[in-house]
């Protein structure tokens, strides 16, 4: 069947070629179990287990060197693990080649074939098929057209990659990966090399294409905003290990570790001491029931600092207003605590009238935060 974005997703992925059974076309569940992989004895992945649900859009989020790209490449079959297993549904594909897995991979630098036109690039995966598995020429041309339409590059099939902008190249890379009707779509830092505006529009585009095709999709990013905005679920990685997997809301509201709290979303970080259920760091003191006594770290998001009015129950801290930036949906405050440290807080525009001029004293009520015993 031609690749037509207007058809319901099930029908789009029905094909006359290699994957003829309906079962193979249903979204695939990816399971990585106990994956270990090291480069030159430096562990890149240390016993990582991750389930990607059928049809979901999952973000692998982490700083550089966290192992997220390695995990993606292991799932793709571009790297092979030293230990552990990769399952696509019930099939063990740990050591299967990328093509045999039915994986579409979008590379960070697009990796387009420079000597081919856009249409030739997209059709490459079909052109190299052998014998009966290869659709005839007219069919291939039709699919290329449908894909060009899907990624909104109609009419550019005759161009060479060098004649396209970065965003357009990325769309070609996406269309090329989709042309082979992959069971799993994997993207490595797909928007990394693009400027902010293009990045935003391509994000929405990827979401739309994912929803239209229903393919299980994993993308790697170091940009927490991108991960939270785009993904159904986010898997946060650090130093070769999985820190937390959850919906963006879960990961943001309930970080499971100090790393996640600090990496996902903005937070003020405090190092201090836990004693009898209270965390104290300089002028700041908040109740943190259930955290063991000893050294600890607290992460308090800007919105956890509220402008206190009359109600002074609970934890609060006095500070001096240093700076006020009111250019967004809410005003951002920089406030200096009595111990000299500066914290970020926010205030609604309605509260702006209550604020003293810069240098004036304010009381910030602490309505939340995350405290972790230091390892």
């Amino acid at each position: 069947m031609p690749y037509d974005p207007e058809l319901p997703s099930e029908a789009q992925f029905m094909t006359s070629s290699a994957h003829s059974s309906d079962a193979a076309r249903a979204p695939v569940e990816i399971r990585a179990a106990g994956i270990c992989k090291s480069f030159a004895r430096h562990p890149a992945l240390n016993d990582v287990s991750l389930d990607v649900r059928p049809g979901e859009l999952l973000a692998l989020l982490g700083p550089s060197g966290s192992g997220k790209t390695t995990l993606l490449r292991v799932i793709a079959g571009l790297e092979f693990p030293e230990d552990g297993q990769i399952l696509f549904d019930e099939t063990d594909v740990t050591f299967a080649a990328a093509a045999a897995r039915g994986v579409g991979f979008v590379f960070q630098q697009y990796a387009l074939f420079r000597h081919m036109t856009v249409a030739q690039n997209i059709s490459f995966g079909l052109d190299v098929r052998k014998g009966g598995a290869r659709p005839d020429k007219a069919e291939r041309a039709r699919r290329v057209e449908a894909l060009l339409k899907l990624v909104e590059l109609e009419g550019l099939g005759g161009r060479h990659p060098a004649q396209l902008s970065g965003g357009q190249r990325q769309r070609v890379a996406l269309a090329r990966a989709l042309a082979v009707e992959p069971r799993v779509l994997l993207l490595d830092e797909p928007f990394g090399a693009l400027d902010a505006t293009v990045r935003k529009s391509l994000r929405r585009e990827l979401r739309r294409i994912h929803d239209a095709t229903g393919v299980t999709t994993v993308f790697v990013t170091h940009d927490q905003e991108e991960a939270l905005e785009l993904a159904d679920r986010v898997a946060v990685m650090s130093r070769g290990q999985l820190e937390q997997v959850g919906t963006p809301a879960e990961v943001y509201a309930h970080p499971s570790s100090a790393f996640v709290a600090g990496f996902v979303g903005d937070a003020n970080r405090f190092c201090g001491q836990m004693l009898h259920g209270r965390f104290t760091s300089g002028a700041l003191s908040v109740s943190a029931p259930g955290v063991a006594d000893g050294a600890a770290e607290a992460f308090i998001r800007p919105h956890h600092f509220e402008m206190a009015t009359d109600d002074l129950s609970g934890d609060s801290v006095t500070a001096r207003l240093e700076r006020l930036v009111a250019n967004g949906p809410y005003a951002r405050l920089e406030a200096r605590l009595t111990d000299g440290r500066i914290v970020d807080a926010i205030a609604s525009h309605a509260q702006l009238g209550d604020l003293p001029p810069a240098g004036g004293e304010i009381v910030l009520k602490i309505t939340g935060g995350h405290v972790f015993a230091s390892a």
Partner: protein
Amino acid sequence: MAGFASTRPLGRVKRGEGWLRRSAIPGFGLTFGVTATVLSLVVLIPLSAVAARALTLSPDAFLKVAFSVRAVDAYWLSIWTSLIAASLNGVFGLAIAWALVRYRFPGKMALNAVVDLPFALPTAVAGIALATLYANTGLVGALLEKVGIKAAYNPVGIVIALTFVGVPFVVRTVEPILKDLAADVEEASASLGASRLQTLVRVVAPGLAPAWLTGFAMAFARGIGEYGSVIFIAGNMPYRSEIAPLLITIQLEQFDYGAASAIALVMLLISFAMLLVINATQAWMKRSRVR
């Protein structure tokens, strides 16, 4: 800010016409001048002198010396041995470049240096070494003799010598391109279901072809003109293993400058024509991909 107060006008830009239009990259006049001067002094004027000297012969005399049976045999020999040697270098040079770029192995630095040796070695030294090695009494020659191949004092020897002097060309032209050809392009090809062979033929080869062709052309041109290393191993039998540059030298030694320059002019035209064809092919390949 006071820094912007200066209103001194900037130097005026001259506007030229046509291909002399101002370019943002300075130095066209200087570099083109140097190019023209050096090319004239070192290449064009000496070559024109060759042509001028050859054309002092009467047409009949020219045809007689330039297209004698012995001369024509020598041209053919020079051309086909150079083509074979360049082709061999095309294959092995590619393999060497591939090994140097793609793998890490002990002795890589040494191998890298060895590749350039044929550039540095006096060709006579190379010729004598090769002749000793490949003569039927030599280390390799004796082995080849056993399987019925005479590797010295015949055209086979010429091909060996020309292959030797041509080694660096393909290696050094292909190497940087191969380095540039990112591994992710090959991974992309493989992930799209292409076999290793399909990836090589459809993705890697088209990327390398222009550079490879340059290397091939340079190795071929070097082969056509090579003299020093060949004469020691060729046997230099007229009609059989006498290369055209040697024939020119022989004429010179007999003080027959007219005949020498006539043969040289024909060689020049043949080489020029073949290099032109190769360069045109390359330009066509580049145009068909639009950089």
